[in-house]
C-alpha cells in the first residue's frame, strides 16, 4: 500500500485513500478585508502507475470554496531519502448564494512541485513538499455579467510538512501544516481583496488513510 503523501514509489495499481479536514489560519490583513475561511473537508487518493510514476487526485471543499486537483509525478529512492517531482492541475470553484450575493467564481491553476521524504515507509514517515502556484485563468459570474481575468500569474507557493504514521495493520493517520506565501485571491477571485502583496499563513490538516 502506498502512502498518501510520502513519495515512496508504489507498484502499479496500488492505491491509498484518505479522508480528513484542513483549516487555514488567515493573516489579520486578509480577515479584515472580509475574506473568511472555514474548514474544508479533504478527500484524496494516491495510486502507483508503475515505473516509479504515481498519480494523485484530491478534493477539498466547503461549498463556498472548493478545489479539485489531479497530479502526476515521478518518485525515486536515494538511500534513506525518497524524492519526487510532480505537477498538479487544480480547478477552483466558489459559490456565494446568500442574501445580496449571487456569485460563482472559478479558477484554473497548475502547481509544479517537488517532495522529499524520510522515515519508515511502513511506519512513521515525514515528507516536505514545495509547490509553486501558477494561475492561468479566473472567472466570476454575476447574475447579468461576467468578469474574466486570463493573465498568467505567479501567485506564490507553499511548503507542506506532513507526518504519516501507521495505525493498525494497514491504515495510517496523517497530519501536518502548510506554510503558504501567496496573493490573497490566488484560489478564487471574488474581489474582496485587491491586495497583491503575498502573505504567509499556515494551514493545519489531519486525516485518516484507508
Amino acid at each position, binding site marked *: 500500500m502506498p502512502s498518501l503523501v510520502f513519495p515512496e514509489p508504489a507498484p502499479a495499481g496500488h492505491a491509498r485513500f484518505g479522508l480528513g479536514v484542513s483549516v487555514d489560519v488567515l493573516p*489579520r490583513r486578509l480577515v479584515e*478585508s472580509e475574506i473568511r475561511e472555514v474548514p474544508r473537508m479533504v478527500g484524496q487518493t494516491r495510486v502507483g502507475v508503475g515505473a516509479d510514476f504515481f498519480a494523485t487526485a484530491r478534493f477539498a471543499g466547503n461549498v463556498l470554496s472548493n478545489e479539485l486537483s489531479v497530479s502526476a509525478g515521478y518518485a525515486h529512492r536515494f538511500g534513506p531519502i525518497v524524492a519526487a517531482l510532480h505537477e498538479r492541475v487544480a480547478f477552483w470553484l466558489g459559490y456565494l448564494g446568500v442574501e*445580496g450575493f449571487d456569485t460563482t467564481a472559478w479558477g484554473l491553476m497548475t502547481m509544479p512541485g517537488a517532495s522529499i521524504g524520510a522515515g519508515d515507509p511502513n511506519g512513521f514517515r515525514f515528507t516536505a513538499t514545495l509547490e509553486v502556484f501558477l494561475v492561468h485563468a479566473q472567472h466570476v459570474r454575476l447574475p*447579468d455579467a461576467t468578469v*474574466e481575468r486570463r493573465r498568467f500569474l505567479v501567485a506564490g507557493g507553499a511548503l507542506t*510538512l506532513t507526518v504519516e504514521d501507521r495505525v493498525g495493520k494497514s491504515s495510517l493517520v496523517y497530519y501536518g501544516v502548510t506554510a503558504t506565501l501567496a496573493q490573497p485571491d490566488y484560489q478564487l477571485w471574488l474581489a474582496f481583496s*485587491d491586495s*497583491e502583496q503575498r502573505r504567509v499563513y499556515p494551514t493545519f490538516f489531519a486525516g485518516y488513510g484507508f
Partner: protein
Amino acid sequence: MASDLRALLALVALASACGSGARERFTPPAFADGGLLRDAVPASRAALAQLSGVHGVEGDAALLGDDVVVRAAGDRLSIFARPDATYAVLRAGCRDGGDTFVLEGYYRRATTVASGLVRLFAEPETNARALCRGEPAPAPIELAGTFDDSSVRLRLQRGARDPSGRFFVVAHRGGCRTIDDCGASENSLEVLRLADALGADAVEVDVQLTSDGVPILYHDDQFDPRLASGAYCRGRVADFTMAHVQALCRLAGGERVPTLDDAFRTVVDETTLRGVWLDVKSVDVLGPASELAARHWARAKAAGRDVTIAVGLPTTELIDAWRARPAPSGPTCLAELEASDAIDAGCGVWAPRWTRGLLEDDARRVREHGGRVAYWTLDEEDFIDTFLGAHPDALLTNRPGLVRHRFESIGVVP
C-alpha cells in the same frame, strides 16, 4: 507515539513562526530637509487647476503605465495611475523669484506596500513663470522629474472627462479602510481631510450611536482592537457615552473617534468633497443622523457649497423608519436593497451591492423616477471596468484613485 507528539509540536512551532505578524503602518514619506517647498511660495489653486487632466507618461511604464490622471484638490495635486492603483499626493510652490514651479510629495502603490518620494517641475520655464504668476501657461503643460530614482515626464493630453462633476467617485469608510494603510484610520477626521487627494468626490462613512445619543463615525458595533485602541475601549459602542469614547478610545492609528457633527464640519469646511453617504448602522441613529445631515446641508448651502448628503438605508427596517419620519430638507435617502425600495421611498439614490450584478433594467427604472445609481464596493480594475460599462452615477470603492483613472479612460458622463 512520542515521535508523533514531537513532530506535531515541531509543526505547530513552525506554523507559529510564519504567523501573520504585526500590522504594518504606512507613514507618508517626506523629504528630510523639507524639500524644495521649504523655501517656496505656495502655488495658487488656479495654477494647479491648469495641470489637471489626463497626461501621457514618458519613463518607467511599470511605475505609472501609459497615462495618468492629474487632479487638483484644494491646495494639493494628485496623480492617479493604473499599475498597482498607484497614487501620488503633492503640494506645489514657486521658487527662484517665480522662475521655478515645483511639486513635491509622496507616491504609494495602493495594492502593495511600496511608497516613495516625488519631485516634479513644470516645463518649459515660460510655463513655470506663468503658473507662478497665476496666468495661463503659454506652452503645452509638461511635468518632469522623479518618482524616487525613476525619471518621468508627464505631458497633458486633455482635460478631465467630467468637469461638471456628474459622476461621483465615493471613497469607502471616509477615504480608505484602516487595513489599506493610506496614512489615516478609516472613519477619522484625518482620512476625511485626505479623501479628495486620494481621488474621491464623496465619502461613505459609518454612523453608530453612543448611549447618550451622539452619532459617531465607527464601522463595527463593538470597540475592539480591529479598529480601536485603548485598554478600556472594549465592548458595545451603544454602551459607551460620548465622554467615555473621548476619554477611553482612539482609532487604530491613534486618532480620536469623531462625532458625525465634527465629520460634517470637516467635509464642508476643510475639503473639496461634494458628497457624503451615511451608512446608518441602526434605526436608533437614523433620526439624530438625519437631523445633523439636514443642518449641515443647509450650512454648506449657505456657504456656497453644493454637498449631496445621502442617508443610507441598508435594511427594510431602516427603510420603514425613514418613511415613517418627515423627510428632512436637503439630504436624500439611499436605498441599498431593491430598486422598488428606492422608488417607493423617494430616495435620490439606489445603491445595490456589486455581487448582484449590473441590474440594468432596475437602474433604468430608478433613473426614470429621477434617481441616481451607485454600485458598491468595487476595488479590482476588471470589475470597475465592467461596472463603468453600465454608466453608473457613482461607484463606491476602497481605491478612489483607480476608479478615477478608469473613469477617465473608459467612463461615460451620466
